């Protein structure tokens, strides 16, 4: 028994003062609340003594309500063993404390559960928002700029779309007219009370005025005019060509022989190109030229005896018709321009009517030459 007491003494030495102090504090607390503490203290003492007694057989439960062993509070005990017993007794078990302070424990439990609930809900919302907004690379697949089989994006797109009903053409990005909406008066921008700071998207900024003056700008312009002497090139020559006598050498730009886009300007009729740019109505020049060339060719063939024979000879009529089946509307009178209808609106040129026109330039050039 003595050894057991000793063990208890060692283990409870440190909290001895704490327990007694805590007990005192509790006493004071109860006094401050207007409650009598003696009963509580005596209850503690009753419980503590019972605990000490039962410590030899530690398997027994420590029953708080057993008041069978009532030991009178003997504050005058100076036996160290008894003191340690008091220390042990002064340490109430957690269950007892919890039962005493039910309100605070309830509050603590409630706050913990609320915090946990908030975390769970937030994680759920974040996860859901991820599904609702897939990455923008899927838009590249949708536009045909990226192959879906490489990235298996199609499958993901289908899956996410099925899950959340997300449409690729979602109305996230709306294109509404601004109409007097002031980009400098945005509610996202918060100006501080002192007007020296601005808050935007979680960051605080300070306005720093520009320090560039007109004189400084002029100085920079002069510096650049001295440093960079450049004249707009007006003549483009291939490497090896001679510079014309009237031309300023600074305005000559040499085209390397291996330049991928090097072509000579002689191939293009500038006047013709300018007219093409300024044309506002009617058939574009090249299309018209090709059509006219085709018409001339047909007329030439008609004038030949071979075509007349084909027309007169009924046995070859099927072959003749078959040749024109590809262009059903070419049976219209040839003097009528098929590209312009009665209202004068332009119809887009048909590739089947000029099969060779788009492929090469040579045929049109041949036709254009007198």
């Amino acid at each position: 028994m003595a050894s057991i007491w000793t063990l208890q003494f060692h283990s409870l030495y440190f909290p001895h003062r704490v327990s007694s102090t805590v007990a005192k504090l509790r006493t004071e607390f109860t006094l401050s609340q207007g409650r009598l503490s003696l009963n509580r203290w005596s209850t503690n003492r009753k419980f503590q003594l019972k605990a000490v007694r039962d410590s030899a057989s530690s398997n027994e439960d420590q029953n708080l309500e057993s008041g069978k062993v009532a030991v009178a509070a003997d504050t005058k005990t100076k036996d160290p063993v008894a003191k340690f017993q008091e220390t042990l007794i002064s340490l109430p078990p957690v269950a007892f404390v919890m039962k005493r302070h039910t309100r605070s424990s309830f509050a603590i439990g409630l706050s913990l559960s609320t915090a946990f609930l908030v975390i769970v809900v937030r994680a759920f919302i974040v996860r859901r928002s991820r599904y609702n907004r897939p990455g923008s690379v899927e838009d590249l697949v949708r536009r045909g700029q990226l192959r879906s089989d490489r990235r298996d994006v199609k499958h993901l797109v289908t899956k996410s779309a099925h899950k959340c009903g997300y449409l690729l053409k979602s109305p996230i990005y709306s294109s509404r007219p601004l109409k007097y909406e002031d980009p400098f008066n945005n509610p996202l921008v918060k100006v501080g009370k002192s007007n020296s700071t601005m808050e935007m998207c979680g960051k605080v900024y300070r306005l720093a005025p520009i320090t560039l003056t007109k004189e400084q700008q002029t100085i920079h312009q002069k510096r650049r005019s001295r440093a960079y002497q450049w004249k707009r090139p007006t003549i483009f020559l291939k490497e090896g060509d001679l510079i014309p006598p009237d031309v300023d050498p600074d305005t000559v730009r040499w085209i390397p022989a291996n330049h991928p886009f090097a072509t000579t300007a002689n191939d293009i009729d500038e006047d013709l190109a300018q007219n093409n740019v300024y044309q506002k109505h009617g058939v574009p020049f090249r299309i018209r030229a090709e059509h006219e060339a085709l018409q001339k060719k047909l007329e030439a063939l008609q004038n030949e005896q071979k075509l007349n024979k084909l027309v007169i000879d009924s046995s070859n009529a099927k072959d003749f018709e078959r040749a024109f089946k590809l262009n059903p509307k070419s049976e219209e009178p040839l003097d009528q321009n098929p590209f312009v209808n009665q209202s004068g609106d332009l119809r887009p040129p048909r590739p089947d009517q000029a099969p060779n026109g788009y492929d090469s330039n040579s045929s049109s050039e041949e036709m254009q030459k007198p």
Partner: protein
Amino acid sequence: MLSLIPSPTIQFKPLFPSKTIKPLKPFSSKSSIQSVLQWNRKPELAGETPRVVVITSGKGGVGKTTTTANVGLSLARLGFSVVAIDADVGLRNLDLLLGLENRVNYTVVEVLNGDCRLDQALVRDKRWSNFELLCISKPRSKLPLGFGGKALTWVVEALKSRQEGSPDFILIDCPAGIDAGFITAITPANEAVLVTTPDITSLRDADRVTGLLECDGIRDIKMVVNRVRTDMIKGEDMMSVLDIQEMLGLALLGVIPEDSEVIRSTNRGYPLVLNKPPTLAGLAFEQAAWRLVEQDSMKAVMVEEEPKRRGFFSFFGLGVLAVTVGLEVGSVVFPILLIR
């Protein structure tokens, strides 16, 4: 990035609550939010129409095409008619950014050859009918060197005299470099927007390009600083916008912060000025478009200051944490003190 627009009649007073400027519409001001400017109006178009603006940089990859697309659409949303020309002969990508790549059938090369008319080569944006795209050439077609400048000049003249009226803005997306493509693009331009990033390589090229533009007779040159990281500027790992302006000596049209939304918008084919709610970069582009319309420039830049204070709930969480830690420490320290 926020900036202030000074009115020609009102002197600039940064961060001054607008007591002298009366809003046209009733403005419900909150106690904590107060707008510095209260302009509820359409920007007033300055200069002669059409305003032919070339957007160039010198160095590649700094954001010319992105700037062209976003500023162009911002102008269209403000009600101005815009024609954007992709002047990159061979490497066309403005149509990709706008999501119009499947609708480009004819280019200026076909117009020059007589395969189609100019109005047939213009691609009208279905989202904004007053925005049109014109590409110089398809990737595999050729345009004679030295001829492109004339051709582009003819195109601009033809757009001025077209039946539906001259466009208000003609934006020319210039290719990188200072070669024939650059010369072609700047030929018909009256003013220039120089796009640069806060790094020394881009600044050197920008300075060179500015010199060439001035030699060619373009004097109205404004600068857009793209891909700005205010946190790196604060940590002095990146040049500040004021440093850049000091080096180049150009007026500021806009400061665009680094934004990952640019890449997403490119993938989607939807310029980020159309995002709802707008991103920081989108707001900056809109402001730059506004200044372009009024031929104005920035008078102040934003410098990042202290980090944001946490909100109420995070403060509450911090408070709970502080109390908990305090109790724990007290439970350990107090007994030690008692024992002593």
